[in-house]
């Protein structure tokens, strides 16, 4: 079977610092992979390479078996990669509809904005997918006034709106309430049910274990190991994570 995404021998250096070293990573169609690792292990660097934000120093990237040479953010999006960033990538002084279509505004000819359609779509997404019912939230609301969970909802709905094949969630539970976190876990299950793939990054082992088919552990820029969640208990996985943090090796 063909991987929908594969990284071969990817290295990324920032000057003297090696953020990633000879990383091999695969994502199967309709698979949810959890990416675990301590702060600074290289999780964010890895996903920024997949989304085309960083160019790898060396190594190869394949989408559906096809090698992609110079991956950029627009190109990754064309290939169906959508990302919910840790920093959420929202423009807080702008209205909700501008945020939903950030960087991919719906336009008519000559690049003129189709403002009506964007407002309409935003309203539909809000009421159907985000479950915003509060009348204070409308397409003209400024995103800066939203709660953490609402902001996360905006970032997620934005990823969903554009037919994504691979959805990347970078620390999506950060700053969320318990109820909002439960909603998020539910949402990742929906991605799987819809036949799409996801990469779920978190340093909360519990969240990842609950939704992922496979867990990949990164430590100091290298892949330390990987497990199918069906083959390992949560306790065992936690034990291994602690051992990696202390010794740099799983066993």
């Amino acid at each position: 079977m063909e991987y929908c995404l594969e990284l071969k021998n990817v290295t990324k250096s920032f000057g003297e610092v090696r953020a990633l070293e000879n990383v091999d990573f695969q994502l199967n169609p309709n698979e949810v992979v959890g990416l675990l690792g301590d702060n600074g292990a290289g999780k964010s660097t890895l996903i920024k390479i997949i989304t085309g934000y960083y160019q790898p120093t060396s190594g190869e990237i394949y989408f559906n078996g096809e090698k992609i040479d110079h991956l950029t953010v627009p190109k990754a999006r064309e290939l169906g990669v959508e990302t919910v960033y840790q920093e959420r990538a929202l423009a807080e002084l702008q209205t909700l509809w501008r945020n939903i279509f950030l960087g991919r505004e719906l336009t008519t000819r000559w690049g003129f904005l189709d403002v009506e359609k964007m407002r309409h779509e935003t309203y539909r997404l809000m009421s159907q997918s985000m479950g915003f019912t509060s009348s204070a939230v409308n397409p003209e609301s400024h995103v800066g006034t939203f709660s953490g969970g609402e902001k996360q909802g905006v970032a997620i709905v934005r990823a969903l709106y554009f037919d994504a094949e691979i959805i990347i969630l970078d620390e999506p539970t950060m700053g969320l309430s318990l109820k909002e976190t439960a909603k998020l876990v539910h949402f990742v299950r929906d991605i799987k049910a819809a036949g799409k793939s996801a990469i779920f990054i978190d340093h909360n082992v519990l969240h990842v274990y609950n939704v992922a088919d496979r867990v990949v552990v990164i430590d100091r820029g290298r892949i330390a190991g990987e497990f199918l969640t069906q083959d390992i208990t949560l306790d065992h996985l936690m034990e291994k994570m602690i051992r990696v943090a202390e010794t740099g090796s799983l066993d």
Partner: protein
Amino acid sequence: MSSETKDITSETSQSYKQPFSLSRFARTYASQLGILGVFFGLWLIFIFSAPNTFLKPQIYYAFMSTVPFFAMMAVPLTMLVIAGEMDLSFPSTMAMGMVAFLWAHEYTSSVPLAFLAALATGVFIGWLNGLIVVKFGIPSLVATIGTQFFWRGAVLVLSQGMSGSLIYVRDSLLYPILVGKIGGYFPMQMVWLIVITILGWVLLNRHRFGAHIYLIGDNVASANLMGINTGRTRIQAFMLLGLVAAFAGVVASFHVAFFWPSLGEGYLMRTLASVFLGGTSVFGGVGTILGTFLGSFIIGAIEAATVAVGLTGYWTQLIYGLIIVLSVIMHTFLRKRVE
């Protein structure tokens, strides 16, 4: 940037439109309503204190004749400031455009070609500003302090500091188009200001370029993550200001049919003040064209009003300062109330 999406519009016919609410309207347009209030408030004060001046059309023709020279530039400057950038070199661009005009006219004896040469020079200077800022990562405030001196210096070197008559432009077809008077009263430069303002509004509010300008000024990191070419957009904004500055330089010079190497000096502060008076935030991400338009007429009217009201000219700057500071405080206050 493709905008292919699932066609889901048909799934719901529900309208997002909510019944009109005055408080929401006031919140959405707080900043613009604020500056409108200042504008009409000052106007009323002027009318009551100097009815002989402000109830006659002459004063308004005078404003429409002189305000457009800097108000035109305030429109693209607003976009640049919304994008979180600054440009202090546009007064020098005005003059450098005219140097190109004089050169081209000397070689071709054609006023339209000379006009195009001036505009091209403006675009080039803007491009260079943008390039220095984007490619070398130099803060635009610092970079354009440098280019401001450089281009003013270039004007002085190339013109040998000499001014010159442009009396020949009066025979050109461009003269009535740029600075003629409709019906003998209404100045053409005001028409151009209105055109630039409307085009500026459309570009900023109804075009992808404007959408990206707001996003870059709001959060450049987000804009980059979401795949916006932030460098190119900022360079384009600098080029736009260069173009309009060169245009304003030609219009201002045609108006007096004379070229001064000091052309543009004195416009820097007025143009900047118009932008900030109009509610554009120096931190980027916020600002409107309407606010800038009203701001430039407030700035333009204060000088005449001070004298008409019976104060000496010494009061002008004091009143400028007062109104600018109070308005900026008002905008900040309104913005906080909204959030």
